[in-house]
């Protein structure tokens, strides 16, 4: 009785893991997501530049935002390359 319950739990866990694994993203979907992220960081850098130019952001923070955008862009480009490579 108890062994049967343990087996049922293990099967349920395996089923859940299989379902989650099946939902993993395809290379195309990963490439699309990386491209969206890349565009997002490019737009962030543009907006931060504009805001700094009109005096809405202090120089210190503008450089933090630019650094974050650069790192985000580099990471997205790398993901895009990985997703595109066979």
């Amino acid at each position, binding site marked *: 009785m108890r062994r049967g319950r343990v087996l049922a739990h293990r099967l349920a866990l395996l089923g859940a893991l299989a379902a989650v694994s099946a939902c993993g993203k395809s290379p195309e979907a990963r490439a699309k997501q990386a491209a969206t992220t890349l565009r997002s960081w490019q737009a962030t850098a543009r907006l931060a530049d504009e805001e700094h130019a009109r005096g*809405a952001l202090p120089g210190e923070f503008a450089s*933090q935002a630019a650094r*974050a955008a650069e790192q985000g862009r580099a990471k997205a480009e790398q993901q895009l390359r990985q997703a595109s490579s066979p």
Partner: protein
Amino acid sequence: MSKLLEIALGIVTGIGGFLETGSLATSAQAGAGFGFQLIWAIALGVICIAFLVEMAGRLAAISHHTLPDAMRERFGIRFFLAPLVAVALVSFLVLAAEIGGVALALQFASGVSYRVWALPVAAAVWLLLWKGTLGVVEKGASLLGLVTIAFVVGAVRLHAPLADVVSGLLPTAPEHDPAKYWFTAVSIIGASVSPYLFYFYSAGAVEDGWDEGYLGVNRATAALGMTFGGGIAVAVLACAAMVLHVRGIQVDRYEQIPLLLSTPLGRAGFWLFVASLGVACFGAALEIALQLAYLVAQGFGWRWGENLRPREAARFTLVYTLALPLAALVSVAGMDPLKLTVISMALTALSLPVTVVPLLILMNDPLYLGEHTNGWISNAAVLAVSVIACIVALVAIPLQIMGS
């Protein structure tokens, strides 16, 4: 007259105390990623937390028990360990996220990394808890938190369309990225329905000596305070929709969020954002550290009270003294503050049944509540939101982790 003042102060506390790093980050992510589409998740969270806060206050006023105290007495110590561990774990993660939020605000202002600021922030929180009283922690931090009203001003300046805000109240299917949509939805609900809010509220009500005469104040505070507080989270979402979503910017790091206020309000907006993030997270860190100490001390029957001197409640004091530096170490180690925030909010949603169901059982027990037990509407609303949030979190968390 004094009751009206209590209600007004309670509402102000609700508004000022609602926004913290979780609701700020998740609302900004929702607005940037999905425009006005996820406002319903904030509304759902607000309804649920308003009911829970009201229940926690009613339990305190009628039975003079705090939540952990009543749970341990009603269910026994062995059962009580499950909610104790769940609430302590998510509270610790949220505390780490709040300390990270204050440290980030200081980084934005000074240029010095948040990893350097984390321990001094924890020390400042500890010092205020050590020296301060409950009134200072509860009211002081929340009054300062009113700076977050800047987001409402920002949303008005951006001319956020009211029709879109209202239509966002109705849940709709996502047009893209469903895993991210549902993950963001459960993170928003987790941020709104943080257990620390109602655990802290119940401890505060007992420490302030509430009785049956406070039921009206409690109801008004819970309903109006949480609704207005939720309004600020909606304003954050609206600012993100108007500033970031229209430009195709999704929120992947905290450095993108100050643009929400600098765009409509200029340089003042940037500083208002820094103040909002710093003050709101500092207030939340105070409350969560205190709530952790309340939880453990009340759960194990130790002497407790923020109004007592530290040496009069030594083990209670020891809990927040240990929790604060440990939580700060998460930021010192370099954990990404936005990821930490969003994951801790999703885990909060996942743990809701464990933290909420025992409360619901207590709230239906005439031994504790007499004639003031729950009605079916509050039972059904809280149970439905908790169970749905938990199920969606169970599906969305693994999908989101695999997707990213």
